[in-house]
């Protein structure tokens, strides 16, 4: 797993994509942070992060699109499959590499938090909760991105599939609130955004943690079995 992880990490930083993605991400983050927190005078970083959630469905698939699709196109999938490592090691290595990039991206956004802390007392619980929830949500998004990458040989298709899945899950929140009633509530419950709102309010709901982690695990499980199944056809 470590071998795959290291290779993917170095591969990320050898291609311009990682830098471009990080730059775009930080720019957008800066824009929202500027308008909500600095110009808007809010001390809650959670508002900014929640807005960022609506562009994550584009950012994450760009990071994850090549992870498995490219191995197939390159012919290097043969290498991984004929080496004495399991598909799990491959999937997890790639997953953690992409997630590390996500962590790095967000570590850079902490500058905004520190800047705010210099001018105003911060709501500690809400800030930590907002970031914790955001990172947990990233776990799920990255897992979905990897799953999309395992479906095809084409990076572009992998990216599009990832974007569509992620947008539709985040979109469930709006759909649920439109419908209302028990059905609306049920739909909203599935949406990762609902869970996120709790974290942003500084509530550490164990059920939400389980929700993100278990859904991410399911996505990885499906990815792994999808790759194993492909081998049999």
């Amino acid at each position, binding site marked *: 797993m470590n071998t795959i992880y290291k*290779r993917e990490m170095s591969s990320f930083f050898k291609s311009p994509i990682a830098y471009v993605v990080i730059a775009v991400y930080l720019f957008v983050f800066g824009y929202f942070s500027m308008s909500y927190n600095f110009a808007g005078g809010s001390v809650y970083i959670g508002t900014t992060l929640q807005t960022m959630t609506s562009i994550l469905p584009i950012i994450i698939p760009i990071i994850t699109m090549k992870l498995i699709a490219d191995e197939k196109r390159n012919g*290097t*999938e*043969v290498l*991984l499959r004929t*080496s004495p490592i399991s598909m799990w090691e491959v999937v997890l290595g790639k997953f953690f590499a992409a997630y590390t990039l996500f962590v790095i991206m967000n570590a850079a956004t902490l500058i905004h938090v520190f800047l705010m802390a210099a001018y105003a007392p911060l709501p500690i619980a809400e800030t930590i909760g907002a970031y914790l929830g955001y990172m947990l949500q990233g776990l799920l998004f990255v897992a979905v991105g990897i799953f999309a990458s395992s479906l095809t040989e084409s990076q572009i298709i992998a990216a599009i599939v990832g974007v569509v899945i992620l947008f539709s899950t985040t979109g469930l929140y709006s759909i649920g609130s439109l419908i209302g009633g028990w059905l609306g509530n049920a739909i909203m419950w599935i949406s990762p955004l609902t869970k996120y709102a709790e974290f942003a309010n500084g509530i550490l709901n164990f059920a939400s943690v389980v929700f993100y982690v278990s859904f991410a695990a399911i996505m990885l499980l499906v990815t792994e079995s999808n790759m194993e199944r492909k*081998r049999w056809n």
Partner: protein
Amino acid sequence: MIEIQHLTKKFGNIVALNDLNFTVKKGEILGFLGPNGAGKSTTMNILTGYLPSTSGTVKVDGFDIMENPKEVKKKIGYLPELPPVYGDMTVGEYLTFIANLKNVPLKGRKTKLDDIMYLVKIGDKKGRLIRNLSKGYRQRVGLAQALVGNPQVLVLDEPTVGLDPKQILDIRKLITALGREHTIILSTHILQEVNAVCSSVVMINNGKIAAQGPLSDFAAASNGVSKYNVTIAGDKTLCRETLDKVGSASRVEFIRIDGDNSVFRIESKQNEDSRKEVFRALAENDLPILELRPIGKNLEEVFIEIVGRDQSAETEE
């Protein structure tokens, strides 16, 4: 070392491999021959654990690929049809990555990798990005990859494709040298390659074994001493008289007059080479030999014959 029994592979309704049986002994270099689409790559993909078989068993050093895939994979170095290289890595980084994948111990690893790079002659390309290397070099990096971890078995799918003639000779020499310590399966459709490096041959066609045996079986038909045409500068009748006296020739047949020369076809008796005797007899009578051409079958003809036979049999069906 490698035992393949009743190996069958179906892709949906298409039968890619049909009841393949063969074994490769330790230290043997097996030439795996067949036209395009015969199932060479499929067999190799199953053997190395990339594809599962539909039925049948593949054992490497006693381990079954389905039951003990990890053990088998540790013992095999595989060079697939397309060298499995990452363009964004340098040759050195790539081989280190492979060494990690194959759990090569850190101790002494650097010397081992340097030795491999020296063997396949890519030492000077260590710091180059694989993306920028030519096809021939990529092929060699792929071969280097297969050698990492010193596996007992090497499975090479058309290792000389894309190389220039000098490189082809180098790689063949290398394979012959590796054959002293490794068991090698080499797929190719270049027949000289089999003649040059292999000790035994398996020919497959349409997913079935068409012929198999030690190279010498195939070479017996191909050494050409049993049958040859000889062109002699001299009169037909005189030549005839002289040739008829040659004891080791079983049959002398007049073919044609070619200007002032006569052409004969001579067949030697079983296990005898009549060429020397023919030369002496003709020389004594001042009949110079202008040309002596063997007309035995070579591996190529055996191959084409087998492939052709199978195809005509199939159209008849």
